[in-house]
């Protein structure tokens, strides 16, 4: 189920003194099973891009195609899109409202009209996926849980409708290291084992650099870099834009500046280690 942007442009608060460009002529296609990292300075349009994926924002120009169908062609198409493209907002734990974890996670499946038994099964599966024990957590109040747990509940709430494409807006922001790691593991499993397409907006690439197939960089609402993670992350534009690059990339840039002939485009600590060992021999 590929999702395609064709020449998308979007302006916020059109025709007011507060008008702001969100996206300008963005075209891209994300294919099945890809894991794309989206990077860019603050205010570059990353969140705006995500909100076009499931039709929360309607482009002023251009169209969004899910499985070759324009998602705004009918209200049925839009509804189906929202079911197939799960969107996890930034700080999703701030949007929890349910009085129990179960109620919170069941919200999506209930809205889409699944039968009660089916809803229960979906909640169970979603909780299992994010690593929350069903019996232990289902009757607890979301607000009494830790930040990391809340975030996982929010993720489960999106996964419960079984989306094929999962888009996450800075999902690890504000989590502690173990929370981050758990989240990355969960998404890795969804991508690798269940073939879900993942679109992951982030400021910190190191934690997923070796996992993503592709990195997309936007600046001022336009795509400026799009390609394999290794190529994009080693591009000098990344550092010029002040974006995070993996430590290995930083080291290799530094060594090259010092006149060392680092070969290839190392991405992981392992790879740069091999290069260093090779160079000192």
């Amino acid at each position, binding site marked *: 189920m590929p999702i395609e942007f064709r020449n998308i442009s979007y302006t916020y608060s059109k025709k*007011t003194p507060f008008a702001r460009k969100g996206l300008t002529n963005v075209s891209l296609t994300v294919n099945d099973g890809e894991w794309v990292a989206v990077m860019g300075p603050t205010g570059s349009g990353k969140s705006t891009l995500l909100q076009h994926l499931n039709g929360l924002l309607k482009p002023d120009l251009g169209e969004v195609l899910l499985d070759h169908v324009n998602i705004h062609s009918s209200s049925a198409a839009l509804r189906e899109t929202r079911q197939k493209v799960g969107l996890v907002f930034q700080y999703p734990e701030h949007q929890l409202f349910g009085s129990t974890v179960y109620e919170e996670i069941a919200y999506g499946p209930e809205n889409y009209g699944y039968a009660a038994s089916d809803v229960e099964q979906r909640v169970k599966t979603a909780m299992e996926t994010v690593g929350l024990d069903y019996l232990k957590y289902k009757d607890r109040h979301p607000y009494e849980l830790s930040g990391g747990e809340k975030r996982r509940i929010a993720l489960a709430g999106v996964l419960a409708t079984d989306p094929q494409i999962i888009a996450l807006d800075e999902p690890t922001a504000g989590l502690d290291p173990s929370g981050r790691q758990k989240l990355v593991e969960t998404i890795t499993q969804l991508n690798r084992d269940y073939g879900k397409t993942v679109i992951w907006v982030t400021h910190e690439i190191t934690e997923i650099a070796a996992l993503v197939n592709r990195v997309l960089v936007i600046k001022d609402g336009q795509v400026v870099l799009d390609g394999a993670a290794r190529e994009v992350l080693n591009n000098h534009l990344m550092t010029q834009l002040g974006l995070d690059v993996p430590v290995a990339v930083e080291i290799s840039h530094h060594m090259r500046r010092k006149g060392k002939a680092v070969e290839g485009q190392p991405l992981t600590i392992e790879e740069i280690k091999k290069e260093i060992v090779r160079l000192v021999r």
Partner: protein
Amino acid sequence: MEGIVLGQYVPGNSFLHKLDPRTKLIMSAVLLWVIFLLEGPLEYTGFGLFIVFLYLLAGVSGSFLKILRPGLYLVLITLIINMIFTPGRVVLDLGLADITREGLIQGLTMGFRLVFLISMSSLVTLTTSPVRMTDGLELLLKPFKKIGVPASELAMMMNIALRFIPTFWEETDKIRKAQIARGADFDSWNLGRRIKYITALLVPLFVSAFRKADELSMAMEARGYTVGMERTSLHELKMNPRDYLVLTVFFISVAAFVINKYFI
């Protein structure tokens, strides 16, 4: 839900922007009272044109309709209720309900008054930055300090409220979008579902409002805010000659209107 909302300030350089906030507050208070004196189509048209003129003068005419949109339902409901429930000469027979001449007039009067009230009071916030507004209010309330009115605290509360209106809208928008992304249909006709959606919206909104209030009070105290303390302003407000001129012309006009209306 994007764009201008009630209580928002649109930066600018117009004549109205430059007036002292006290001048604007006093004039708008008087004009809000004048609205209730208006009678007959001529006066209503005149006042309407005057408001349009002020919006053009302030360079915020683009915001006019946006400001009115939230109030429009209120106006429509007022209009309909008045039209149907006022007894009098029937002009249109709709079977179940009759529209009377008196009801139509009553409804239009109330509707226009609402529109005037909303657009008039919004004009002040549209052309005055929250900081200047607070200072202006504080100075206006100062004489009442002697009788125990906490002028600076009231002004501060007002300032915070104004400051947080856009934030609150943004938050609402964000939560609403998160719900829609999970299949909520806020336009549903099913009342039970609608109540469920609204609850799902209100709970996180309140939680976030309390969290924000908590954070803000902590930040204010950390920077030494104490209730009842004598504070000075970074930018002292000063009434300029143009303020006195505008106020003089304004009061003469209003007086002329009232005298002409009731005493001649």
